[in-house]
């Protein structure tokens, strides 16, 4: 377990994934290889059905690839040693998710939405709330700490969601259209925030996006077409 400075945080080699069999078979990913280092912010681009979400699900340990191998933060995943509960624990400890819509639990206030992740990882409630409040402070949304998600604006909700994704200090953050529900000004703010986090927490951020106005905020952009990767490596 753990990572070394020389090892990429996310490494995929010849990863393939298909759905269905026979004539109904759809190859969602075809021998995809990539590696992403700590501190990098990368985008996955591609038309609908190109395999972006499938790739994000594979990296997020939600979908098991049919072939190939994957290493996350030094751990080789899907080598028959991993149980579903292990993968869930891996997600809890090492991966943070940011969604298109914030997906905050509607029955918890902003602080508890963040604290929940800490409690699931074993923190006491009071300690979890204290650390959650600090994270909200860091993301400049502390003034809304007691608000329910339905009372948060799009930008505030997304900041709380980012705080939740960061709560356990994951080294990998996966974002699915993180700025799709935001106007261009707020989208820029969120992307700048993610870049700052990647630097400060030494984390890798992978985002699926169609939002052209934020392309310049990524270190690299991976293009997917028909399940194949076309790495343009735009730094």
């Amino acid at each position, binding site marked *: 377990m753990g990572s070394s400075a020389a090892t990429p945080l996310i490494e995929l080699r010849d990863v393939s994934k298909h759905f269905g069999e026979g004539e109904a078979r759809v190859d969602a990913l075809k021998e995809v290889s990539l590696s992403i280092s700590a501190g990098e912010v990368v985008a996955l681009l591609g038309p609908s059905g190109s395999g972006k*979400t499938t790739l*994000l*699900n594979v990296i*997020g340990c*939600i*979908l098991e690839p049919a072939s190939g191998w994957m290493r996350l933060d030094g751990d080789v995943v899907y080598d028959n040693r991993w149980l579903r*509960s292990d993968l*869930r*624990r*891996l*997600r*809890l*400890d090492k991966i943070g*998710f940011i*969604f*298109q*819509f914030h*997906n905050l*639990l*509607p*029955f*918890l206030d902003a602080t*508890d939405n963040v*604290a*929940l*992740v800490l*409690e*699931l*990882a074993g923190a006491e*409630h009071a300690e979890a709330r204290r650390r959650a409040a600090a994270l909200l402070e860091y993301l400049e949304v502390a003034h809304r700490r007691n608000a*329910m998600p339905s009372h948060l604006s799009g930008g505030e909700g997304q900041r709380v969601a980012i705080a*939740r994704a960061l709560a356990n200090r994951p080294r990998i953050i996966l974002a*699915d*259209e993180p700025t*799709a529900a935001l106007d261009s000004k707020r989208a820029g703010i969120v992307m700048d925030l993610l870049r700052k986090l990647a630097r400060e927490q030494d984390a890798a951020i992978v985002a699926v996006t169609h939002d052209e106005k934020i392309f310049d905020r990524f270190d690299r952009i991976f293009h997917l077409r028909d399940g194949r990767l076309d790495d343009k490596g735009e730094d």
Partner: protein
Amino acid sequence: MNLAYRDIRHGLLRFLLTCVGLSLLMAVVLSMIGIYNGLVVDALTIARAPATDLWVVESNTRGPFAEASRVPGDTREAVARLHGVVAAGSVTYQTVEAEHAGAKLRLYVVGFEPGRPGSPARLKAGRPIAQSHYEMIADFRTGLALGDRIRLGRSSFSVVGLVENHVNTGGDPAVYISLLDAQKLQFELSPSASRVQIAKGGLPQTKDTVNAVVARVHPNVAPAAAADAVRRWKHLSAMTQAEQELILTRSVVDRARRQIGLFMAILLAVSAVVIALIIYTMTMEKLKQIATLKLIGAPDRTIVGLIVQQALALGGIGWMFGLVLVLAVKDYFPRRVVLDPENAIVLGLIVFMVCVASSGLGVRAALRVDPATALGG
């Protein structure tokens, strides 16, 4: 943190409204159980009121409740002389309609001999009948009060005592009057009818007829042995108190009892389906949240806890409010609602099991949710 509690608190009004709906359903189930019990208890109350061991009735009948029975009035002396019989008394039973305070009253009139077996064992108010004529002990449900007067047939009666929960199998409240008055009410012809009979050359009809003779036997004598002794007389039938009660529950109210029992079973099944649907729907509405929980790494026990705890809270609150509701309104039912603590506990256990089983459906659905559902808007 307890997610079930937080979710309930967030949608408190909706949850409470669901609980109210479930409470009403539980109240209906409990009412049916109470009505079922009440039917059985009511059927036995009149038969148990005289606190006797032996019923002597007309030969080849199972009277006086299941079938009509008539025996001569002097049967009582013969029964009283039987070995082991301590005391015997004659009784009559009939249903009459009377008027009181401008309303029609349907009454179950019991005639008995004051001072002999057949009188109600315990009074709730007033005193026993002390005169041979025109005094009455009435059940509370008649609406009569001590001192009230009511006309039965051609005589007027004064209420001197009150009893509680003395009704016949049809639910009509009972009144107790002296045997002489009851015989007159039941067997005496109107003056005009009597004149017609005499004009036809008929003999005046005897009134000394009763419906049954009840007897108490010595503690050392088996009631069945006394009943056997009576049966040897051929012109009479006899049954023990236990046999009389069996006839009442297995024969007189059996169909009504089974009808209510079946309805109660259907109601329980419907309740189970409704509870299952509510819990399943509650879970289905949370699938996206459950997918998010799974995605962020929540273990299965957190998700199972969320569903099962809410299901149990719903069932528990529904059952409790339903019970309170029934206890509050049960005395306003036209017929008696008898709810034993065991009934409420058994229903509570059934609700618990239904909730656990129903949440099993929800849990199954929740555990099958793909965490990827949380991604992609």
